[in-house]
C-alpha cells in the first residue's frame, strides 16, 4: 500500500512538474466551458420560445435531459478520447526512455504495486478534470434545479468510462519508448472502441450485437440518462481489470526480453 501510494504520488507530481497536467486541464476547461455555454444558451432560447407559445401544455423542459446528458454523452466523452492518451502516453514510455524502469523494477516493489500506483496517479489527474466539470454544472444548481441523483449516476459512469480508457491507454504505453507513438496508437484504439456501437445501426446479426456490446459508448448511454445498470458497471470494471492485467503481462514480458 505504502509503495503503491509512493508511486501514485510520484506520478501526480510528474504530471504537475511537466506542462502536461496544465495543458490537459486548460484544454479540457476551455472546451467543456464552450460546450456547456452552448447547451445552456440553446436551452434558454428553447425555453423562451416555449413560454412565448404559451407552453402548449407540454411539460417544462428538464435540465438533466437538455444540458447534462448531451454534455456528457455527446461532448465530454469525445474530449476524453483526445485527452486520455495524453495522460497515459508517458506512464511507461517515459520510464523506458529515461531508464528509470530499471530503478522501479529493481526496487523491492511488485509489478502490481507499480501498475496500480501509476493507474491511481493517472486517475487522480482525471478526477481533477471531473471536478472541473462540476464547477460548470454547479452553476446549474445556483440558477436552476436539476435533479441531483441522476447526476451522480452520470458522474459515476463518466468516471468509469474514463477509467476504462485510462487502463487501456496505460497498457499501450508499455509497448514503446516513444510517447508520441503511445498517444497515437491509444487514440486510434480508443476511437475504434468508441465508434464500435455504430454497428448496431446496420447489423442485427450475432456478430453485430457482440461488436456493439464491446463498444465503449454503448454502456455509457444509461449512465448519461442517470440510470445505473449493473451490467454497464460490470462492463467498465471488466475493461479496467483487463487493461491492468494486460499491462502486467506486458511488463512481465519486458523482463524476459530486454
Amino acid at each position, binding site marked *: 500500500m505504502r*509503495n503503491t501510494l509512493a508511486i501514485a504520488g*510520484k506520478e501526480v*507530481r510528474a504530471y504537475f512538474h511537466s506542462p502536461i497536467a496544465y495543458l490537459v486541464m486548460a484544454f479540457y476547461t476551455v472546451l467543456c466551458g464552450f460546450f456547456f455555454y452552448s447547451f445552456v444558451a440553446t436551452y434558454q432560447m428553447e425555453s423562451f420560445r416555449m413560454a412565448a407559445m404559451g407552453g402548449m401544455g407540454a411539460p417544462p423542459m428538464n435540465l438533466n435531459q437538455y444540458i447534462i446528458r448531451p454534455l456528457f454523452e455527446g461532448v465530454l466523452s469525445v474530449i476524453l478520447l483526445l485527452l486520455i492518451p495524453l495522460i497515459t502516453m508517458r506512464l511507461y514510455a517515459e520510464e523506458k526512455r529515461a*531508464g528509470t524502469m*530499471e530503478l522501479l523494477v*529493481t526496487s523491492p516493489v511488485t509489478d502490481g504495486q507499480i501498475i496500480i500506483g501509476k493507474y491511481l496517479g493517472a486517475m487522480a489527474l482525471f478526477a481533477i478534470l471531473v471536478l472541473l466539470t462540476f464547477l460548470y454544472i454547479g452553476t446549474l444548481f445556483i440558477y436552476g434545479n436539476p435533479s441531483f441523483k441522476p447526476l451522480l449516476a452520470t458522474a459515476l459512469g463518466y468516471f468509469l468510462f474514463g477509467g476504462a480508457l485510462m487502463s487501456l491507454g496505460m497498457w499501450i504505453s508499455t509497448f514503446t519508448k516513444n510517447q508520441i507513438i503511445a498517444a497515437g496508437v491509444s487514440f486510434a484504439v480508443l476511437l475504434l472502441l468508441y465508434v464500435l456501437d455504430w454497428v448496431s445501426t446496420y447489423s442485427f446479426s450475432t456478430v453485430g450485437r457482440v461488436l456493439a456490446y464491446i463498444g465503449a459508448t454503448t454502456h455509457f448511454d444509461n449512465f448519461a440518462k442517470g440510470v445505473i445498470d449493473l451490467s454497464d458497471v460490470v462492463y467498465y470494471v471488466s475493461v479496467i481489470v483487463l487493461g491492468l492485467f494486460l499491462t502486467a503481462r506486458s511488463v512481465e514480458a519486458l*523482463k524476459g526480453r*530486454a
Partner: protein
Amino acid sequence: MIEVEGLTKRYGPAVAVSDISFQVQRGEILGFLGPNGAGKTTTMRVITGFLTPTAGRVRVAGVDVVEKPLEAKRHLGYLPENPPVYPDMRVREYLTFVARIKGVPRNDIKRRVDEVAEKCSVADVQKKQIGKLSKGYRQRVGLAQALIHDPDVLVLDEPTAGLDPKQIIETRDLIRGLAGRHTIILSTHILPEVSKTCQRVLVINQGQVVAEGTPEELTRRLQGYETVLVTAEGPAPEIMDRLQRVSGVNLVEPREAADTRVTFEVHAEKGQDVRAELARAVVESGWKLLELKTSGLSLEDIFLKLTTKDLGEEAAANPVPPVS
C-alpha cells in the same frame, strides 16, 4: 555474498550470456571487464532482477533472485549505466521517493537522504532539478540512489562512464571507501579502472568468463615469461629450429612471414635476457637479423588477447583456469 551458477541469458536465438559462474565474498570489489556487448550489463541486470535468467541460479545474500525477488532486491543497490533519474524532479525529492520505494522506514528517510547526499557530495544541489545538473552530478545522484537503503550488495554498471578525469578519481575513491561495508560488483571496459579499484577481476567476452583473478595475478600469469620478437631474413623452419636451441628459450612461435622475412615470438624464462644469445644465433648461422625487441604484456594486451575474435574463441575453448 553473491553466488552466480551457470547463468545463461538468451534473447531469442541470440545468446547474451552463456553459463557464467562466479562468487563474490562479503566486502569484496569485483570488476567485470569486457568489451562492449560482452554480456556485462546483461549479467548485472539478471543479478538485480531486471531480467529473468534463461537458465542458472543467482543468489544475493543467500536469497534466490528468481524465487524471492522482493527479499533479494532489499539487499541490492543498483546503478545502471545511465543513472535512473527523473529529470523533472529535484534531487532531494528524488532521493526521498527512492527511499520510500526501497523500503526505508518512514522515520529514517530524512536522515538517510541527508547521509547519502553528504556521502556522494550532492548535498549542495539538493534543491536543483536533476535535469539541469551536469553529468558528474547526475552520476553521483545515481550512486546516492543506489546507497539509500544501505544495501549489502552494490551493482554498478560503468560508474565512471562519461565523467571527467577529476570526477573519475573522486568516484573511484568513493567506491573504494564503500568496500568492506558493501559488497560491490562494477563493470567497466576501462582497464586502469580495474587495477585501481577492484580486488578481483572477471574478464568476460562474448558471454563467457575468459579469465579470473586479481589484477596482479592476471598480469603475472599472462606475463609469466619474457617475450622477444625476432625478425630475420632466411629459411623459416631452420631459423625456428636454431632459436629453439638457444638456452633459456621455452617456446618459439612464428608470427608473420613475408617473402623471406619472418618474425618469431620467442618466450623465455622469466628474468632471463636472451636477446644477445638470440642475436648471435641468427647472425652466426649466416641469416640477416632485421629486428629484435622485447615485448611486455600490459593489461591492455591481456585484454586484447582474451577478447579479440580468434583468440577469444580459442580462449573460450580452453579457458584460462581461474586462480583461486
